[in-house]
């Protein structure tokens, strides 16, 4: 059916164009190129088809359900029971019903099947007749002076608009789902306890029977987010300690010192780092760097956890290097050559020029790239889940294990979860706070970058 409509679309395109050529051959000037006539007809074919299909998809199940259940009305069934009967009917008609088969339901299933087939064939007939009618109408309508270009352009604009709308609506939807669950969570757990509590132990909320379920005292000292926020920022801090100096210096090297040839090869090579899946970084951190640090630490008489914040943060830093180096390379390169010339002409050396002219000029852009790196570090999940441990310790010792917001969300949501359970909702609350933090960072970063752009215009 779908293939057929696509074929029809192509056919109407062909007819539209042919008609345009015919008009052209009678020495009349067209208002648009011939293919616009084709597109115009194809659109007249696609839009009605799309509308009918979507209407059908919305109303068909409801109508069929009404028809089936009309047999059962006046028999004193409750709504829930009726729903159940309908589900049973559907299952039976697909041959997936395993329970006891009553003649009633069998009859309904047969009726269901026949209704469905009627619906299918009537849908086909209606769609086809409407498409043909609309195409024929449009075909008759087009003549040498009919406008086809504008509707086609408008249609394209509408399609593009819908696409971007879809992306935005998804974001809005995500935010709303976070908001409602978060509000539910804070109905049980006071906001104060969440923001300032220093004990994070969601497993405790699981050890209970149903009688305790709504007892708020049960949850005190359970969902204090301070340790995992601290852990998140701590690991991000370690990551940035690695990423900023190395990324910045390699960015400066690439932009200012590297010859064209070196830059040509070195930049993609550094960017390969950005292409490594984070799960690979994760087991690199957990299985290679972590044990290695532990061994070194032990040989120096330090007590190093195999899952240390240092290992996770360090590897995360390596992951972020390409971001910072690539972005800062870009902003440094975009500092106008005239500023470099001005500085060299004053007798400044290369390093003086970089330090005193180029770096300050590029600083806003560099800060922007660093902030983007930070928000990436805070949102990073795989590495911390694998390498930094899941126990939410409140510690500033990089050799101990800590946990982060993302890792805790993973811990909470792995396996089966009950909706409406504070433990599950805690994940939403964490997700919401994470979203807010990275959102703020991104906004600040974009602002800074934008300010920088205006400077040289």
């Amino acid at each position, binding site marked *: 059916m779908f293939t057929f409509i696509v074929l029809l679309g192509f056919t109407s395109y062909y007819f539209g164009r042919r008609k345009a050529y015919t008009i052209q051959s009678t020495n009349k000037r067209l208002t648009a190129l011939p293919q616009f006539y084709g597109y115009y007809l194809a659109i007249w074919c696609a839009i009605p088809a799309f509308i009918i299909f979507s209407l059908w998809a919305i109303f068909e199940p409801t109508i069929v359900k009404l028809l089936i259940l009309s047999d059962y009305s006046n028999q004193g069934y409750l709504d829930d029971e009726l729903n159940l009967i309908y589900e049973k009917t559907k299952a039976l008609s697909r041959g997936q019903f395993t329970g006891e088969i009553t003649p009633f339901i069998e009859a309904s299933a047969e009726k269901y099947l026949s209704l469905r087939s009627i619906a299918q064939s009537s849908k086909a007939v209606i769609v086809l007749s409407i498409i043909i009618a609309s195409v024929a109408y449009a075909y008759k309508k087009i003549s040498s002076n009919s406008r086809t270009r504008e509707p086609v352009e408008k249609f394209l604009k509408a399609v593009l608009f819908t696409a971007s709308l879809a992306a935005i609506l998804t974001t809005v939807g995500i935010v709303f789902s976070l908001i409602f669950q978060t509000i539910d969570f804070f109905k049980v757990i006071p906001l104060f306890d969440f923001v300032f509590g220093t004990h994070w132990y969601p497993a405790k909320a699981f050890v209970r029977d149903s009688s305790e379920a709504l007892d708020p005292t049960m949850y005190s000292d359970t969902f204090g987010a301070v340790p995992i926020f601290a852990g998140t920022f701590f690991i991000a801090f370690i990551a940035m300690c690695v990423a900023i100096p190395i990324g910045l210096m390699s960015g400066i090297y690439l932009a200012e010192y590297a*010859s*064209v040839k070196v830059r040509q090869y070195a930049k993609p090579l550094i960017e390969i780092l950005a292409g490594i899946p984070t799960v690979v970084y994760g087991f690199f951190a957990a299985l290679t760097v972590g044990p290695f640090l532990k061994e070194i630490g032990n040989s120096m008489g330090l007590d190093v956890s195999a899952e240390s914040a240092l290992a996770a943060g360090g590897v995360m830093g390596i992951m972020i290097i390409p971001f910072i180096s690539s972005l800062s390379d870009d902003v440094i390169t975009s500092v*106008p050559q*005239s*500023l*470099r*010339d*001005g*500085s*060299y*002409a*004053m*007798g*400044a*050396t290369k390093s*003086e020029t970089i330090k*005193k*002219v180029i770096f*300050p*000029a590029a600083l806003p852009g560099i800060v922007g790239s660093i902030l983007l790196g930070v928000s990436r570090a805070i949102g990073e999940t795989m590495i911390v889940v694998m390498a930094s441990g899941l126990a939410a310790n409140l510690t500033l010792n990089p050799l101990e294990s800590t946990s982060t917001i993302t890792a805790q969300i993973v811990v909470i949501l792995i396996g089966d979860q009950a909706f409406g359970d504070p433990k599950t909702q805690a994940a939403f609350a964490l997700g919401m706070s994470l979203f807010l933090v990275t959102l703020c960072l991104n906004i600040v970063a974009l602002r800074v970058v934008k300010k920088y752009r205006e*400077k040289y215009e």
Partner: protein
Amino acid sequence: MKKNGVKMIKINSKNVDVFYGKKQALFNINLDIEENQVTALIGPSGCGKSTFLRCLNRMNDVIDICRVKGQIIINDFDINDKSCDVVRLREKIGMVFQKPNPFPKTIYENISYGPTIHGMAQSKNEMDEIVETSLKKAALWEEVKDRLHEPGTGLSGGQQQRLCIARAISVKPEVILMDEPCSALDPIATAQIEELIDELKKDHTIIIVTHSMAQAARVSQNTGFFHLGELIEHGSTDKIFKNPENKKTQDYITGRFG
């Protein structure tokens, strides 16, 4: 400035060839620049006059593929010699560019940049003085004295160019190279800069590349005419403009080509 009626030669260039990669941009240039005079370099676009100017403070070093051959002697010293210290050379030979290029710093910092690099001021007071004199010499002091700590990029185009001139003279260079310094400016700002050039030649030797023959005639005492990488003719501005020896010079001056 004349000493006993003999003109002092500040820069003496001998057989200068410049190559960009395999392409030769300048052919055997021999040009003497007189001290405390304004020398204008004229010629059609792409004739090599800017390239020659950039040879004089070795700014061509910045361009990877550029090679310079021949001798350029300033103060009895060949600046193309390996022993030449580029930092010291550029301290002595300042440069002003086509487009005003103040650093994205304050007006004060723009001027103090050079003196800081070359360690010319021992104290804040000395630096203040250098900034003030440089700005005064560049005829900008009155306009900016109340906002020295505002960004230099906020000035108008003509002011920015005078700021760049002030920046160049802050290190007391002997020679100032100007690469079409007025091409991005309006006539009023141009007139101000030209007046300034006349002032500056008391203390500095000035070489100016310009596309405007009227400007060359107005500001310079000597003129060199470049065409296709060759120095066609050079001599006093009067002579070049009124009585050129070469046919090409005559054609260019009278606007028949270029």
